[in-house]
Structures are given as C-alpha cells and as structure tokens.
C-alpha cells in the first residue's frame, strides 16, 4: 500500500474550517458527524469518518479547493454515489470528502460527432436513457448503473455485462477535464474518436480511483443504438457442458453482447427467492449445475435467425432447458434471474467477500473449478458467477463474520483464490478496483518496477500526496 505522505495534516484547524465555510457557503459544507457518516462509507461496507464534506457546484470552487488543499497538506477524497465495492471512496485516513453530486449536468449530446459531454455526477442509467431517445448508445453497463455515476464509473473503469462485445468504460472515454492538486486544470484527449498526439492522459485518469485529479467534465464516445436484442437462457447438468456450449457460440462466429454464467450454488440461491425455470433440485440426476444467459443485439430482422444459431451452438451440450426471449418484454424476466444472484448469495450466509478476479478467457473452466475446490477444502460456500464471455468471474465467499473460525477460513479462501488466479495468468480485479479491500494484495500481482513507475506518475500529478491517500497500488 502507498506510503502516506508525511506532510499531510492530521485534522482540520479552525482556520481550515473558516476557509471551507467561505468557499462553500450554506448547504455546500457539512461538518455534523451524523450527516457526514454516509460520506465515509461505500458498498464495500468499510467506513471512516470524514473531517468535512464539501459540495462544489462549479469548477472554480474545485480549483480553489485543490489549491488550498495542496498548500495546507489536507487530504482530499473525491466521491460520487459511493457504490464502489472496494472502499475506493472511503476516507480511511481522514480528509475532506468532495461530493460531486451537484455537478450533474449533461452539457452536450451530439449525434453527428457521436459524443457527449457530461459533468461527473450524472447517473449512468439516466444518461443512457437520455441518449437512447436520440437513437444513440452508451454501452458500459456496470450492475450499479441505475445508482452509480459516470464520474464514479470513469474513476473505477467500471465494467459490466456488455464488456464481451463492447468493452468497458475505458473504451468510451475520449476526453477528461480535471483539476489537479494545486489547482491546475488539465484537458486530456478531446472529441475525436482517434487521437495519437502525445501520451494517452485521458486513459490514465480512467480507473485511477481519484488519485490523480478530480474530474469536472468527461467527453464520452457514443454508438448508434442497435435496433433490437434477444436473449437465451440455458441450464446444464455440468459446468463443463455450460462452458463447452459457450465455446461453441464463439466458434460459430457469434459475438454475444453479454454472456453470463451462474454456478450450482448461485442457481440454488436464486431458486430460494423466486420460481426458476431450470430443474431446481440441488443434487441427483438432471440437477442444474450451471446456467448460461446470453444476449445478442442487432437489426430486428436478423435477430430471430441469430437466436436459432445460438440455440444450435448450445445443442451439442444438451441443455436441460432452454428459453428464448425476443425484445425487452420477453428478455427482462430472464435477466431478472441473473440480477438476483447478488441478494441470493445471502441465502447461504450473512456475510460475504465479493471478489471479481479475471483470467485469460481460455482458463475460465480451470479457474471456476479451482475456486469451487478451494471452497470445498475450506468448508466455506464459494459461489461463482459472472462474465464468462470475458473471463471476469465474480467469486463470492460466503461466511458468518461473527464466527472467528469462519472469518479466518474465509480469508484463507480469498487468498487461495488470488493465488490460483495469478498462477493462471489472471488479475486480482477485473472491474471493482483495488481500493482498500484489495490494496494489500497488489504487490502479489505487480512487480516492484511497475509499482515504482506508478508511484512516480502519481508524484507528477499529486506531489504532496493529498488525493485519496492510501488507495490503489
């Protein structure tokens, strides 16, 4: 984990507070602990109490804030909706939390340039709905899209189910305007879809977890909206058959928009919440051991034929059941089942460690079978599901945190999962980021040289180390 800069202050003085009151009048500043508490927590369930919370409305306020913070050595923690899974927005070492939610204007949507300019606090799903009205498409779809923001998505390089075909947030960021510590404004990238002049600073900001600068404007790439989509859900008697089916789909030359899988425990958990279309008995002949959900998109006239081709590709793996949906009304119930997996996991136990490792796509079977074996060995429920198409596997380690022994075994499980992932040539995090929950494990994956290079880059952007200290790498 990053060494904290020694020049940082350990709390705010009355003079500091007077400064903040002047820069953020009225509702712009909060210092009451009860009101600040939520700004100290995120979906990782980690928490720390901010020293103060500010809500800039303008870039000028952001510039003044970062000029002051660098001069005074005050840690600054940028934040949007706080839905990250790894504690990236948690002020683990104190500091002033900067809520970007009042900067939430869509500045421009241009159907000729195929790009949009937005402020960081715009909610992703609301943005998608807005561009869709103009027959445009912003593909990144993290599971949190209805509750998270574009600023947060860019800061974490959020992924999603459509990554297999459309890529992740990184692939849609054309330009970033950000304020750096000291108050400098940088404009990285621009509105062009191609750009090779200089180093790619815009992409450097993507996934930097608020450690390099605070965004004030993002320029995003848009696509033409596909005319329609269709979905197939199929259940299999073994994980191997499901994965073989998935391979056949690719061999047939089909690139699905999304290709998700659920393992046996995930299927069981969902069956506890809702009536499921697959054979639900947990064991024995004909039991469901894995489910695949695939989506394809394109022109409406071609979709029916595409569905038949997917069905044909899966036939060799003898699915126990196969359901098809054409158009949103028929597809939605199938995807609803997939979305239930996260709450369903809590049917197996009260606490979970949610990991999101990724492996080279050809090693997915080995990885999932290995993770399941690790769970069996430790006597802990390990549930695997996720983005089969791109090798990004959600590994949920379910346990009871009140039991010290289970806590220890869960941690052992997590570390074994990480080791196996790395041995397969994978990465510790495909889309959640390392934040504070995975920060300590980063040296397992990144060598000394690479980490020194990253620390050097961080030093160029933020020489005093005030931005989101203790996060990342």
């Amino acid at each position: 984990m990053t060494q904290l800069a020694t020049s940082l202050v350990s709390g705010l003085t009355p003079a500091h507070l007077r400064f903040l009151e002047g820069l953020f009048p009225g509702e712009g500043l909060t210092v009451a602990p009860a009101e600040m508490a939520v700004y100290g927590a995120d979906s990782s369930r980690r928490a720390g109490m901010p020293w103060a919370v500010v809500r800039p409305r303008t870039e000028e306020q952001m510039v003044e804030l970062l000029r002051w913070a660098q001069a005074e050595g005050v840690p600054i923690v940028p934040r949007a909706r706080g839905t990250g899974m790894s504690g990236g927005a948690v002020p683990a070492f104190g500091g002033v939390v900067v809520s970007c939610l009042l900067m939430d204007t869509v500045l421009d949507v241009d159907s000729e340039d195929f790009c949009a300019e937005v402020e960081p606090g715009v909610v992703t799903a609301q943005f998608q709905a807005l561009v869709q009205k103009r027959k445009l498409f912003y593909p990144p779809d993290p599971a949190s899209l209805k509750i998270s923001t574009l600023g947060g998505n860019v800061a974490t390089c959020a992924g999603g189910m459509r990554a297999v075909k459309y890529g992740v947030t990184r692939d849609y960021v054309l330009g970033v305007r950000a304020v750096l510590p000291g108050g400098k404004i940088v404009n990285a990238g621009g509105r062009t879809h191609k750009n090779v002049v200089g180093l790619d600073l815009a992409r450097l900001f993507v996934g930097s977890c608020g450690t390099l600068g605070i965004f004030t404007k993002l320029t995003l790439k848009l696509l033409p909206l596909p005319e329609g989509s269709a979905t197939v859900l199929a259940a299999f008697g073994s994980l191997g058959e499901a994965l073989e089916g998935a391979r056949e789909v690719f061999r047939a030359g089909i690139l699905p928009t999304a290709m998700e899988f659920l393992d046996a425990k995930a299927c069981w958990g969902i069956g506890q919440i809702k009536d499921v279309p697959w054979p639900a008995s947990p064991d024995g002949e004909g039991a469901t051991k894995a489910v695949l959900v695939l989506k394809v998109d394109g022109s409406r006239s071609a979709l029916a034929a595409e569905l038949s081709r997917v069905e044909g590709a899966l036939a060799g793996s003898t699915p126990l059941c196969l359901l098809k949906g054409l158009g949103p009304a028929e597809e939605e119930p199938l995807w609803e089942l997939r979305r239930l997996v996260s709450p369903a996991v809590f049917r197996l136990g009260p606490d979970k460690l949610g990991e999101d490792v990724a492996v080279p796509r050809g090693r997915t079977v080995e990885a999932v079978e290995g993770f399941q074996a690790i769970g069996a060995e430790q006597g802990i429920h390990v549930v695997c599901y996720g983005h089969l198409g791109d090798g990004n596997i959600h590994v949920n380690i379910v346990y009871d945190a009140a039991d010290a022994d289970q806590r220890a075994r869960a941690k052992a499980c997590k570390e074994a999962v990480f080791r196996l992932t790395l041995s397969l040539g994978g990465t510790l995090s495909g889309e959640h980021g390392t934040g504070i929950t995975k920060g300590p494990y980063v040296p397992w994956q990144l060598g000394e040289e690479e980490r020194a290079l990253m620390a050097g880059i961080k030093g160029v952007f933020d020489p005093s180390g005030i931005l989101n200290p203790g996060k990342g790498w």
Partner: protein
Amino acid sequence: MPPDSPDRRECVLCGCCLEGCPLLEATGREELSPRAKALLAGPSKFDAARLAEGDVAALTGLCLACGRCEKLCPQGVQVPALMAAMRAAHPDFRQWLWKQWITRLGPYWSLAAKGAALAPQAFVDTFVPAQFGLALKGLKGLRPGNGLAPWLAIAAFPVQAFRARYGDRPVALFDGCVGRGPRAAWGETARLLLKGLGAHLAEPRFSCCGSTLGVAGLPQEQAQARAENIAAWREAGRPLLATYCATCRKGLADYAGPGADGGLFADEAEAAAWAASLVPLSALLEGAKAKAGRGAPAIVGYHRPCHAEAADHDFRLLSSLLGPRLRTPAGGGCCGFGGVMQLSAPELSARVGASCWESLDTALGFSAAPEVTPAYVLTGCSGCVMQLLATAPRGARVGHWLEIIRQK
C-alpha cells in the same frame, strides 16, 4: 437465522435504494438518502460518542416515508419503519409539533369542513407555528368549494362483474381523515359509485388509518387507531374494505404486513381475511364506461402516489375512462408530502414538490402555454392532493379523481 427474518434485515450498503429516493434526487445530498438513514439506524460503524443523538434524530426525521426504497431493497430493510422507530425513541420538538398538529388541530379540520373561513387569523397566529406554512397552504387548498368542477358522467357500471366477483358481500368505505373532513364530497361521490355498482353499503365507524401517526413516531396512538378500525370492521361482519386514498390503503394493508403487531388480529386467518378484504374503489369500477361533458380539459395529468399498489388501479381506471386525454410522467415522481416532512422540513418538502411539477410538465407541457392548457392534475391520495395544492404553479388545478365525477 433465515435471511428474511426481521432481525436479519440489515442494510449491506449496496445502494440499490438510491435509485428511488425523491429526496436524494431533488437535493443531491447523500445524507438524506435511505442508505444514510439505514447506516445510522443500524449497528453503527462509527464511534457512537461522535454521533449526537439529537443530530441523528433530526436527520432521520428528514424522510418522506414514500416507501420507494423498501421496494428496491434486496435485503428487505424498511427505512420508513426504522425512522418511525427512531422518532418514537428520540422524541424531539418536531415530533411534538406533529402531535400538536394531529391531535389539537382536529377541530380545525371540521371548521374547514363546515365551510367557514379557513380559520380565524388570530387562531392561526396563536397556534400555528411558521413551520406549518406549507401544510397550511395545502389545507387551504382543500377548502370545500375549492375542488374541481365535475365533468365526467358514468354511463355504465360493471354491475355484472361486481356481482359475479363479490355477490352480496357488504362493502364498507374507508374515508380517511380528508374524505371524512374537509373533502366530504369525496366520500359522497364514492358512495354513489358503490350504489351504482349495486353494492350493499356497511357503515362502520372507522378511525384514522394510523399510517401518519406511525410515521410521526407515535406508535401508541397508531396501535389504538388500528385496534379501533379492526373492531369496527369485525362488528360490521368483516365487509369488503374499499379505499380511495393510496396512503390509507397502504396504512390498512400494513396492519397485516411484515413487521406488524401480531396481536392486532384474533389469529392468522383473521389477518389474512383483513388483507384480502382491502380493495381500491377504482378496482371495483374496472370496466365502467363514462362520458366526458362540458368543462373537460383537453389534457389531464395523473400523479401516481408513492403508496399506490403495484397495479395502480386508479391509473388503469382513469386510462380506460379518459383515453388519450390522460397523461402521466414515465418515471412517476414523489410529490414530497412525506407526512412529517411538510411540517419538519417544509423547504426540502417544497423542493421535492418542485421536481415533481417539473416532471409533470414534461408529460403535460403546461408551462409552454399556461393560458391555453393550464396544468390539470388528478391523483388518488389525500397527502398528494394536499402537497400538490401547496406546491402547484399559478393557475394549476389539482384534485382527487373522484372530484371530476358528476354525482347525477
């Protein structure tokens, strides 16, 4: 312990609730979100000594109790109920204010109902604190004679369907505080509609539904109101219970809902019978035919109350009666009434109200030419009517859908 037992309903900070919270949407202030409240109400991750009880109580008071978050929560956390419990546990001046409002302003409601001037100014100056401003504005709007002029005649009632479904089972109408008080006309029209269906009317003496009392952190008063209503229903032979206020309907359904006091009913069968007897008046009227007469506006807006049941029978009925004349914003939108909020934080409540009118405007387009198509909005909840009246743009007309129905 099974994950769905109430003790296990712990917020996991996933943030799914953030999608629906009208207060967060209108203010961008995360501390007003359901997640912030669940964090404070749950096992604290923070040193309790740093969180002053008064501050916690004050913050948790800022909840609209619209219930949108609990519909989105995968863990089944009920933030409005948590907030009510906290209000009950930390009585502060806001709760005191609310209690005054409900218990002492009773005569005031009936003054209004009698068509007197709303209240003598001296009474207002003496007893009504400045904070009641927004609520008073809503109440003023409810003045008898201030309602919408009726323009819709029911041409045919679904008598056969009603008879086939319910036979001779008597029907009791639950009027609620507004329908029994300042807008007694709602109750009169509702009774005429039931007669049109050929229903046998039972007339038990019901009390307040108790919903707002619970939200205000007055659990004893709520329990008493609930017990009185169940007793009245029982005495009347357990009739069908028709409602025309979405919040009353939800308030009554909560008697037998998750987390309710199991001692209210004789046994589970009676609780189930209560739940099964509840029906929106609009559902009974499904299939009715109507004719719009003179004075019918070209565009009629519909505001969906947060407490409307999933099927939203009011909307279904109005759609079938009014056809393309009826419009509603796609995403809905909370009006910001929020029980205590109109009193405890009128400024926030008004801000949510303003967002609501903005989204109504996108569907109705009244701001483009207010003199040609002034805003005309119907809804099916007393609280929404009050709040929409209090926050309406100039010239807007707002009322319960019962108001547009001709009594002859």
